């Protein structure tokens, strides 16, 4: 046994994982204990968390700041609607098949936009999302601006739909949060952290920054698309402005910046704040968005680490530890 | 004797890392002082601190009896300090003339005979021919001449030169160093940061040697021996064979 060992798991991390597992089980079992309204809320919150976490991986680790993730949300959701409603594919199979659409779309978009630096890339993604919104508005197959309804869902009972929604929400969180966590703890995670801190230096240390960014972009597209398919399946209706709307970018950026960029914990904190702000203040008009916008501004100017950054400056108790600690073994035991 | 520029217990660094630990140097009008030392000794950091690029306390830098430490770089220029930055730092995409014009348009109040485009062209005649050329199309030596000319045109009383011989052919270095006496003749104080120790010794009246953020040797350039320099340069335990 060597004198030193690398520690990655902490007590707080174990507790958090336990809570995460309990939460997932809770979500899956919702149809047997929760109201319709609560299930719908949890599905919505899960979708927000997923979209924000995908943005977090892009901006927080990949250095790819996108304001056009709604392109993938909308494309996957529309693909699911067309498969299920127009072609009669089983809607739950359609959710998974529809993920091919954002993946396929992400490849040409990345090759088109990756030449643009930072902010230009961001607005480039916005143009793509806008173009897709207009395209959807003009496509007779998608019923144009009037949008589509998922009438095929009536073949399932309310309880069956609740089970499916709950399973999908749990799976969505497992894939986006759990998947991100596993990736960040793998050797790719070290490469990505290096890339976040200094792309040029990471490249010189053998990190293939270009390829890593490409994978990240495609993975984030699929993750965002998954959230879109789940979200609009629960809504049963889709229109071009809701599917390709800026609201997706707004919420992702707010959640990550206020919660804390580059951490999974920050996304959870930010998502909960956004969700309740929308829930409690949304009925009094859009003025809460003024506050959320100014909070995003304040975080960009003064608190780059967001709320999680503030927390971790005072407590060393990460919920999802991805850092490695080198500790000296006390009394090496043979 | 009244120093034109002096530093007093100057401490500075980058973020949490302190690079200078109480530097005391001084220079008079018309004097040339060389600053030598190994890479990382803190020479460039000292120039940046004087220039106002790094934060320092006001009384750490005195210019003509006034505490000027920590002023923004553009205010240091107005106070009469200029720098020929390491790596030349010319404004790319602009011609030689435009690079010089910017300095003229933001110059300090001249003391004595002002530097004009004509005087700079007299000092480095090649620049007159290249006036309309984009600076990125010049040779390294010509770029260094533009950089020196640009800094002269802000009408400094103290000129800080950061490694002006770096990466240039010996012939070009000689040409540039030959121009320096014409600069100090008008009363400009010159601080030369220089890697080439013997060149620094020849070009200056006094020199300071720095090691790990401290001044380890100072004196008249002509009096200092090679042994003293190598002891100061590498630390007390090293002696050059």
């Amino acid at each position, binding site marked *: 046994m060597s004198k030193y060992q690398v520690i990655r798991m902490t007590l707080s991390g174990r507790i958090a994982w336990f809570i995460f597992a309990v939460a997932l089980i809770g979500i899956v079992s919702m149809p047997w204990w929760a109201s319709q309204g609560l299930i719908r809320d949890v599905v919505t919150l899960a979708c927000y968390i997923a979209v924000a976490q995908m943005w977090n991986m892009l901006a927080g680790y990949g250095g790819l700041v996108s304001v056009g993730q709604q392109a993938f949300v909308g494309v996957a959701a529309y693909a699911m609607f067309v498969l299920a409603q127009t072609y009669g594919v089983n809607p739950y199979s359609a959710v998974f098949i529809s993920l091919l659409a954002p993946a396929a779309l992400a490849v040409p978009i990345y090759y088109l936009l990756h030449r643009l630096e930072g902010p230009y890339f961001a607005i480039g993604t916005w143009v793509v999302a806008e173009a897709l919104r207009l395209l959807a508005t003009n496509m007779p197959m998608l019923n144009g601006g009037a949008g589509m309804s998922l009438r095929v869902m009536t073949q399932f009972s309310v309880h069956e739909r609740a089970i499916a929604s709950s399973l999908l929400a749990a799976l969505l969180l497992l894939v986006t949060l759990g998947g991100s966590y596993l990736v960040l703890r793998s050797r790719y995670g070290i490469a990505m952290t290096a890339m976040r801190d200094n792309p040029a230096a990471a490249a010189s240390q053998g990190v293939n920054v270009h390829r890593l960014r490409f994978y990240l972009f495609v993975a984030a597209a699929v993750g965002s698309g998954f959230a879109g398919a789940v979200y609009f399946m629960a809504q049963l209706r889709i229109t071009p402005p809701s599917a390709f709307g800026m609201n997706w970018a707004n919420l992702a950026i707010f959640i990550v910046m206020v919660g804390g960029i580059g951490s999974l914990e920050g996304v959870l904190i930010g998502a909960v704040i956004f969700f309740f702000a929308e829930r409690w203040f949304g009925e009094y008009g859009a003025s809460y968005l003024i506050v959320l916008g100014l909070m*995003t501004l304040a975080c960009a100017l003064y608190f780059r680490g967001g709320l999680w950054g503030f927390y971790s400056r005072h407590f060393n108790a990460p919920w999802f530890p991805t850092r490695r600690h080198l500790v000296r073994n006390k009394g090496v035991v043979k | 004797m009244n120093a034109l520029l002096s530093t007093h217990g100057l401490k500075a660094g980058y973020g949490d890392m302190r690079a200078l630990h109480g530097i005391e140097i001084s220079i008079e009008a018309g004097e040339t002082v060389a600053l030598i030392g190994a890479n990382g000794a803190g020479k460039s950091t000292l120039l940046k601190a004087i220039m106002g690029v790094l934060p320092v306390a006001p009384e750490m830098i005195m210019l003509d009896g006034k505490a000027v430490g920590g002023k923004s770089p553009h205010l240091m220029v107005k106070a009469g300090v200029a720098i020929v930055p390491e790596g030349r730092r010319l404004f790319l995409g602009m011609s030689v003339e435009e690079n010089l014009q910017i300095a003229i348009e933001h110059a300090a109040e001249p003391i004595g005979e002002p530097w004009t485009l004509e005087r700079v062209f007299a000092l480095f005649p090649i620049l007159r021919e290249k006036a309309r050329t984009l600076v990125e199309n010049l040779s390294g030596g010509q770029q260094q001449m533009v950089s020196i000319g640009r800094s002269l045109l802000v009408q400094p009383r103290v000129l800080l030169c950061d490694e002006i011989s770096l990466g240039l052919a010996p012939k070009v270095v000689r040409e540039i160093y030959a121009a320096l006496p014409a600069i100090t003749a008008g009363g400009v104080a010159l601080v030369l940061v220089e890697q080439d120790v013997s060149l620094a010794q020849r070009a200056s009246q006094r020199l300071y040697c720095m090691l790990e953020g401290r001044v380890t040797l100072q004196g008249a350039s002509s009096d200092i021996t090679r042994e003293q320099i190598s002891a100061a340069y590498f630390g007390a335990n090293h002696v050059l064979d």
Partner: protein
Amino acid sequence: MYWIDGIVQGILLGGLYAQYALGMALMFGVMKIVNVTHGDLVILLALIGISLADLTGLGPWSILATLVPIGAAIGWILQRALLNRVVGDDPLPSLIATFGLSIALQNAMLQIWSADTRSLSGGAIQQASIPVGSLYIGVLPLIVLICATVLTAGMAFLMHYTRFGRALRAASADVEAAAMMGVNPRRVYALATAIAVGILGFAAAFQAMRSTVAPSDGPFQLIYAFEAVIIGGLGSIWGAFTGAMILGISQSIGFRINPGFGILAGHLVFLAVLAVRPQGIFKRKS
């Protein structure tokens, strides 16, 4: 004739886009500052102008003359209070900060002015047109185009032949070196943003006269300006002007193919330029 008319109307439309693009060419292209509120500021100024006209009964040209200094003041404050803090190598802070401000601004405008579309009455000139052969050229769009051309020429002159323009270019090339040559970058940047937003005062008045404005329109203006700047090539003032013309023509022709296709055609041309000539039409590869 139908298509020639399309091109002519496209050029006239491009005149309006050029006014959006000019300020962005300055901030985005030269200063490398991202200002997501660019479009929202056009809308804000237009709404201020419309309210001012309602309140005071001032004519459209007096409103224009008022909006330009108001825009310049907003630009100055924006740069001093906000953007100067986020100038640097990392573009993320300025993007995120102005993105947040954009959301706040849009919703604040929604609270103040409601979601209604409004416009500024331009008087008789709004309907006037000049017959050229079998085409009719609107007087107002022509004024917009001439104004855009003059502003672009003025900006190009400012950038190349004035102390301010040289200082700004120097600061964009190397901000620290510029400061070490006596340039006060914060002041130069504040002045540049004041000019950029001041020009939006023209754009706002003309936009409100030519069509309508609503609080949530800002992102569209931002995207058009961005597309024009990228099509023309970053950092090139006349490039942005030409990019605006190309965008205007693409939208106008697209609209004639199918009314739903107009704006989309502009986006597609932008993406095509990006695929074929990512450095823009006017810029050589560096």
